């Protein structure tokens, strides 16, 4: 016998919170209950789209309470953390003393560093030769950051450009133009110097690239986006980033592969001290420097103009 037809429910009106949970569970089990009237949090406006950090369970507590609860918890957390950190430092080995582990790992780096990697600057040797996998991951962190910034801020299509954003153009300022005219050549020269001498003196790909990137940003601020756009347009940005990162990835994969399988790698170390030495470190520094320069400039462009 067909069950009596249930009166069709119009738009289920907002569920009034039934008093006892037991009665609603019983009704739910009898299966004739419209599931919407379960003790679901009160009507949609307040807790329904509750995306905030208040979970529905807390939504019944007056608004000010979570704020106080949060601050109290945060205060306890940070005090405990500070206390433990001070205690840790108190237990750490003495500052500035020769630790006993110096004679295993670091001894090898310093004594044979220059001999194997050819780099006078041992830190560059460690970064690009001994622990090269970290630095490969490093430039991909930067690549990932620039992809995220491009995804977030790029708004070349008309509709996606936010309407109330006013672009302030300070590029016609005479003082700025004279100073940048005097400074930029020095900055580029210094950046290239730091880049090329990565394996001889402190510096290297990341710091050299950042200096060159800063030079590009200065040109863009002083002479407006279109002048610097001619130096690094979107095409140049894409080509440089892709070629440099692919070269880095492939070059290092070659070294890892030959090293792991014991094959002889054709990359010689050259005589330490002059520019063209230290195997792959110089070309890698140049590649990383270009990637970092384009990234710094690209990120600035996204914040400044929201498009290339």
């Amino acid at each position, binding site marked *: 016998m067909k069950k009596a037809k249930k009166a069709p429910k119009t738009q289920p009106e907002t569920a009034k919170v039934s008093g006892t949970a037991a009665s609603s569970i019983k009704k739910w089990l009898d299966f004739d209950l419209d599931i919407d009237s379960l003790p679901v949090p009160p009507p949609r406006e307040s807790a329904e789209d509750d995306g905030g950090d208040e979970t529905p369970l807390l939504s019944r507590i007056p608004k000010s309470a979570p704020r106080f609860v949060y601050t109290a918890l945060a205060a306890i957390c940070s005090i405990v953390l500070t206390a433990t950190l001070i205690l840790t430092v108190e237990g750490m080995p003495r500052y500035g003393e020769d630790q006993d582990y110096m004679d295993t790992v670091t001894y090898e780096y310093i004594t044979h560093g220059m001999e194997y990697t050819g780099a006078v600057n041992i830190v560059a040797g460690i970064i690009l030769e001994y622990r090269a996998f970290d630095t490969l991951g490093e430039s991909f962190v930067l690549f990932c950051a620039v992809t995220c910034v491009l995804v977030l801020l790029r708004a070349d299509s008309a509709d996606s450009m936010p309407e109330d954003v006013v672009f*302030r153009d*300070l590029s016609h*300022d005479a*003082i*700025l133009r004279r*100073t940048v005219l*005097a*400074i930029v050549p*020095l900055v580029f020269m210094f950046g290239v110097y730091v880049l090329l001498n990565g394996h001889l003196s402190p510096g290297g790909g990341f710091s050299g690239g950042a200096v060159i990137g800063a030079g590009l940003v200065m040109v863009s*601020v002083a002479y407006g986006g279109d002048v610097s756009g001619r130096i690094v347009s979107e095409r140049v940005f894409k080509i440089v980033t892709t070629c440099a990162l692919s070269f880095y990835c492939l070059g290092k994969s070659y070294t890892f592969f030959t090293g792991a399988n014991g094959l002889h790698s054709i990359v010689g170390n050259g005589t330490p001290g002059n520019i063209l030495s230290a195997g792959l470190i110089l070309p890698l520094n140049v590649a990383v420097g270009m990637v970092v320069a384009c990234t710094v400039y690209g990120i600035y462009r996204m914040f400044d103009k929201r498009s290339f």
Partner: protein
Amino acid sequence: MAAWVRFGFSAFFAVIGVFAFISAAVGAFRLDYVLSRMHATALADTVGIGAIAVSASIAAGVDFVTLKLLFSAAAMVLTSPVSTHMLAELEYRTGDELYKHVKFKVGKKWERLK
């Protein structure tokens, strides 16, 4: 004797530099409007770093290291006023409470705009 003279000069410049930094810090806290705060802190970059660089180079004698130090101090003295100038211009263009902090001399008295 020469050591004393050298120590005296470098100490003198060092005191100037440190005083500039302290006044900048106090200025940054005490002053309320952004332009006046900027005036205080801009002082620190030029006078402070310049004086300390000079005092360090006097104390350490002149060789490549101090030349490099003086060169970087000169670069700082050249560029930091320009950056302060840019920030001030931006604040002037966009800030809307400028009139509250500006006084005009009307006759003998300084009055604020209403």
